[in-house]
């Protein structure tokens, strides 16, 4: 899906009024992607916390990606092929894959079982309210797995990096950008540690995307009751002030405490600075939909933000 189209069918966005008396919230699960990375525990905690706040079913996903990495097995460089070479080779490779897949699946199941236990401990009432905590395993690429489950997903939780990306390899996991671009659901990108957010901030730029994201935030029970700073980066102009006041009104009507701030500079520096100064522990932002061409030239603001922030980030689509 091109990033420019933002298919938000959220009732709050559709009606244009803050929530409260709106028809029921979107259905679907909180889907948490678990792997062997150090982020898995925080992902699990965030997912359990979110599911509990939204009274949504919780689903843990583990993706078995067999395509990456070196080919294993004993190396045969003899280069000789005899009778039945293809059949023998197929049999051998299939056996190898079978063993590896079994092992990976077993490891994944253990990870998932651990996650479920952790979630139960964190949110003891969740299972009763939503029937059950579900676990899923899929083969293939993470993005494909998420797209296959998209229709039943309400919100996605994943770590900033997966186990296949070494810490020094880059600041973001190799799947993350692709996931944000392809999956049209709110995505919570977790850092390595979890604490229930006490103060969150919303990066507001007055754009239509930001307004939609704001309405989504106001309409959702996820962060309700947590003070939400509205931060506008740019020159101090009357229009900006007006837009901010309007946005604060939206949030306050939904029961949020919403201090506003107008900070100069460019978003890359100003937002992290504001976050550090005010002890904010979660950033909410719209996935800034650029055209594909602009994206190729400038890179995505969203991923730049993800890279800069040391707190967890919620990306709204």
């Amino acid at each position, binding site marked *: 899906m091109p990033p420019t189209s933002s298919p938000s069918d959220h009732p709050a966005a559709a009606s244009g009024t803050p929530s409260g008396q709106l028809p029921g919230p979107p259905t679907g699960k909180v889907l948490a992607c678990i792997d062997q990375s150090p982020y898995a525990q925080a992902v699990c905690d965030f997912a359990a916390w979110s599911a509990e706040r939204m009274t949504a079913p919780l689903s843990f996903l583990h993706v078995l990606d067999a*395509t990456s990495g070196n080919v294993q097995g004993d190396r045969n460089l003899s280069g*000789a092929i005899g009778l039945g070479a*293809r059949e023998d080779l197929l049999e051998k490779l299939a056996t190898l894959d079978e063993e590896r897949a079994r092992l990976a699946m077993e490891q994944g199941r253990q990870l998932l079982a651990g996650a479920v236990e952790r979630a139960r401990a964190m949110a003891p009432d969740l299972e009763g309210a939503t029937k059950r905590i579900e676990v899923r395993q899929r083969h293939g690429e993470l993005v494909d797995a998420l797209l296959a489950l998209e229709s039943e997903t309400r919100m996605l939780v994943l770590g900033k990096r997966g186990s296949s990306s070494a810490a020094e390899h880059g600041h973001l996991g190799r799947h993350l950008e692709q996931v944000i671009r392809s999956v049209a659901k709110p995505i919570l990108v977790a850092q390595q540690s979890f604490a229930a957010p006490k103060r969150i901030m919303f990066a507001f730029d007055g754009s239509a995307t930001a307004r939609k994201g704001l309405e989504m935030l106001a309409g959702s029970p996820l962060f309700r009751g947590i003070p939400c700073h509205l931060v506008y980066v740019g020159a101090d102009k009357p229009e900006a002030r007006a837009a901010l006041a309007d946005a604060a009104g939206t949030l306050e009507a939904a029961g949020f405490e919403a201090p506003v701030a107008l900070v100069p500079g460019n978003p890359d520096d100003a937002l992290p600075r504001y976050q550090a100064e005010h002890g904010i522990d979660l950033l909410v932002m719209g996935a800034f939909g650029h055209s594909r061409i602009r994206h190729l030239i400038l890179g995505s603001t969203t991923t730049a933000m993800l890279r800069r922030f040391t707190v967890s980030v919620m990306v709204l689509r």
Partner: protein
Amino acid sequence: MLPSLRDTWFFNLRGDVLAGVVVALALIPEAIAFSVIAGVDPKVGLYAAFSIAVITAFAGGRPGMISAATGAMALLMVVLVREHGLEYLLAATLLTGVLQVLAGVFRLGALMRFVSRSVVTGFVNALAILIFLAQLPEMTGENARLLVFGVVAAGLIIIYGLPRLTKAVPSPLVCIVVLTAAAIFLGFDVRTVGDMGALPDSLPIFLWPDVPLTLETLQIIFPYAVMLAVVGLLESMMTATIVDDLTDTSSDRDRECVGQGVANVGSGLLGGMAGCAMIGQSVINIKSGGRGRLSALVAGVVLLLMVVFLGEWVAQIPMAALVAVMIMVSIGTFSWESLRNLRTNPKSSSVVMASTVAVVVVTHNLALGVLVGVLLSALFFARKVGRFLVIRSELSDDGLHRTYRVSGQVFFTSAEAFLEGFDFKEALQTVTIDVSRAHFWDITAVGALDKAVIKFRREGARVELLGLNEASATMVDRYAIHDKPDAAEQLLAH
């Protein structure tokens, strides 16, 4: 978005580089042998192997597959080379590439679904037999000497014996090195690669084929180019399927068609002959641990460097040593399983497979073999499906009215059986033909129904047809199941 370089090229660095080297060493004798088959200098096959392997590494749609100069293609160009010379071959190679690119652009790779498994097996076996037959001239006639047989036998012993001792070195390479050394030191009087024509003495250079750009030239090369394009794509698609199965991954067929085309254009411009994917080499690549695009690139580059810089040694390789390697390739390509399955598989599949092999071996043209195989599969299928036709009937108590209920598939093969299901000699007042559980697939079927109605009328019966609309829904060629997901179910349910 473009997947990262790491994911497409360097995810299996060690395996790809090692496998690429093994493949390069195995490619050299093959490329030389196929040049000999085509009747051109070894350098034509070697330049082709280099450019095709390297270009498909970048442009192909099936990572892990090795493409280069092949026997299937070489066999098709023999007459062209003999009658018109090398330059026309290069022009035909160029045109082949263009045709293949067009095939990719128009997504003809999807046509491969008409090629059944039996045809694929037949193709592969025929290819193996052709490669083997092409080695015979080196061992018959004036070459039929004990020394030659001895060298071939020694080669085969090394190739198949050495892997029992060590799998760390490619045994075909050891075979060639040992036999070449023996031939030099012991002064064997056997034909060598150098006797077959020029070897590459430099890196390939860009050359436009030296042919007149006239309609006459096109008339000469076009039929060859079409055959080459078809056979090249067939073998490439089949090899891609084999690699898909071996690695449990999928390939991009349309991209592969375009890639093969671009590779042939490149080969033609660099003085190489037309080529395609190679079953044997691809199996060797996978077996040696190659999975990514890198292995084909390494194979091409290593091959060229070896040949250019070791040219004078390559020239000393006895042809008999190459024959041993090629016999290995033909044995490895042959589907041994297909012989064992000959008894257990349905007879029709075995007939399709055997006919494909027979036609290819007789005509030396793999495209003809596949054509015959595909036609036979279609006929056998039509015959089988035509049997799914049942006509039941019941007579009313007064004996004046009969209801026929037709269920099953009515089309050109079953139309006659359809007519035989009616008893036209029975004297009736009214006849009801209920076709709502039948499918009329073509106008032959509708014609048969008309005929039945007219016959009954001529015998004085009034005919009532039931459910014709449902039955003939299948007639419409534009019947678009993909537009309506439940259309197929509706069709099969009624």
